């Protein structure tokens, strides 16, 4: 029965409560930096930009007093993969590679260009991983939903349903533990009736079929709960007029500086390499 407690061992994004300058930022500012860093890590081709976007989140993590090892612990399972990719970089040389050869072992050789490619790939991953890890550890669930509304506030003027979108994310957050519990109880109920979800000796087709009486009731229960919630909200006149907010996330002038800095950074990483090259 150990495999049935699905939720216990899952750790994606744990909010770590603390009172630091990073935690005190408004959700909108955190989102802007998240997007800026993700953009620079995944889209930029410049080695310098990738290095910067790998170091910046670690610097912010220090400010937020989040342990850097905690952010990087996901890197271990990936190492074999990175090693494999590195081996392939070494085995197959790039066409028209004229960079200096660092290591020569007869038929295979490691050129500077190949080494840079491997290191950049690892750095890119570190950058994205630590950025997302940091965001989830400094932003509470409520702020994650509120931030979405703030970020899309400019689009809301042209009719984008920012409020509805934020509500949807808040509902999803609220439902996740409920659904996980629901899955657990249905799995246990089915297992009690002899269903096989573990490593039984039966054929894969039978195992796959066992998922149908699991997914269907859980989804139906989720839909029923959602209907009940929607009816309760309508009965309280949600959506009948402008809604107010309990938590204020406007932020002060310092916060505005941080937001502008994020936008400047995102623009800078694409403009500066072009300027340097020309």
């Amino acid at each position, binding site marked *: 029965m150990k*495999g049935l407690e*699905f*939720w216990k061992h*899952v750790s*994606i*994004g744990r909010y770590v409560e603390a009172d630091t300058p990073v935690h005190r930022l408004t959700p909108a500012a955190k989102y802007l930096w998240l997007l800026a860093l*993700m953009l620079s890590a*995944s889209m930029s081709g410049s080695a310098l930009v990738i290095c910067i976007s790998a170091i910046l989140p670690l610097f912010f993590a220090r400010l937020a007093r989040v342990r850097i090892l905690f952010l990087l612990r*996901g890197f271990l*399972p*990936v190492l*074999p*993969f*990175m090693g*494999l*990719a*590195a081996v*392939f*970089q070494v085995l*197959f040389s790039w066409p028209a590679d004229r960079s200096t050869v660092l290591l020569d072992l007869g038929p295979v050789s490691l050129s500077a260009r190949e080494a840079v*490619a491997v290191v950049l*790939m690892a750095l890119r*991953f570190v950058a*994205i991983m630590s950025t*997302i*890890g940091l965001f*989830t550890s400094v932003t509470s669930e409520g702020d994650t939903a509120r931030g979405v509304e703030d970020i899309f506030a400019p689009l809301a003027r042209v009719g984008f349903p920012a409020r*509805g979108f934020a*509500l*949807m*994310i*808040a*509902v*999803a957050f*609220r*439902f*996740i533990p*409920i*659904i*996980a519990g629901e*899955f657990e109880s249905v799995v246990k109920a089915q297992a009690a009736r002899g269903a096989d979800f573990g490593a039984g000796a039966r054929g*894969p087709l039978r*195992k*796959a079929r066992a*998922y*149908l009486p699991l*997914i*269907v009731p859980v*989804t*139906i229960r*989720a*839909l*029923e709960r*959602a*209907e009940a*919630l*929607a009816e309760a*909200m*309508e009965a309280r006149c949600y*959506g009948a007029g402008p809604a107010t907010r309990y938590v204020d996330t406007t932020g002060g002038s310092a916060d505005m500086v941080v937001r502008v800095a994020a936008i400047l950074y995102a623009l800078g990483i694409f403009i500066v390499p072009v300027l340097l090259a020309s």
Partner: protein
Amino acid sequence: MERSSVRRIVISGALGAVSAVMAVTPLGYLPWFGGASLTIMHIPVIIAAVLEGPVAGTAVGLVFGVTSLVKAATAPIGPLDPLFANPLVSVLPRLAIGFMAWGAFRLFRGKMLPLAAGVAGAVGSITNTVLVLLALGLTASEQMSGAFGVQTGALPAALASIALSNGLVEAAAAAVFTSSIVGAWKGLENARGRAKLSGEGN
């Protein structure tokens, strides 16, 4: 009852939660022959599109995509997970699932409902497979060839063979799941329409 926007939002949220739970637990994968596994995490996205329209489908697709992005970046398990730590691979293709599934459902809506839902499931699943593999091929061809042990030139063939072998079975599974869930839900809704009071106790 007419569909209010609150209802649509809340149902999308609930299905987003189902998709998120599937994405971070082993429940999102069906065991299949030869140790391979089929993903079924995109099914809530298709169901949202069928029940509540393309906007809800896209919104749930976004939740699904972001969850798989966060999971790939914070708790990677498989060899391909690091590649999903790229929003172009994990988020962008997932936005299209809802739209395609909704389109397929609309085309067949006049006919039998379970059939239309099944077709929507298959189309949504194929959209997911094709676009994710396309995005992987475009953004990470070097790393992919490392992971599969083929040279970059042979990568399109390797991706196409995945699309055929896993993708078609996944599409069939998605068709079965979507049509069962939508059928059961519509059945419940009709039964409640006939006897409104009887369903209120639970």
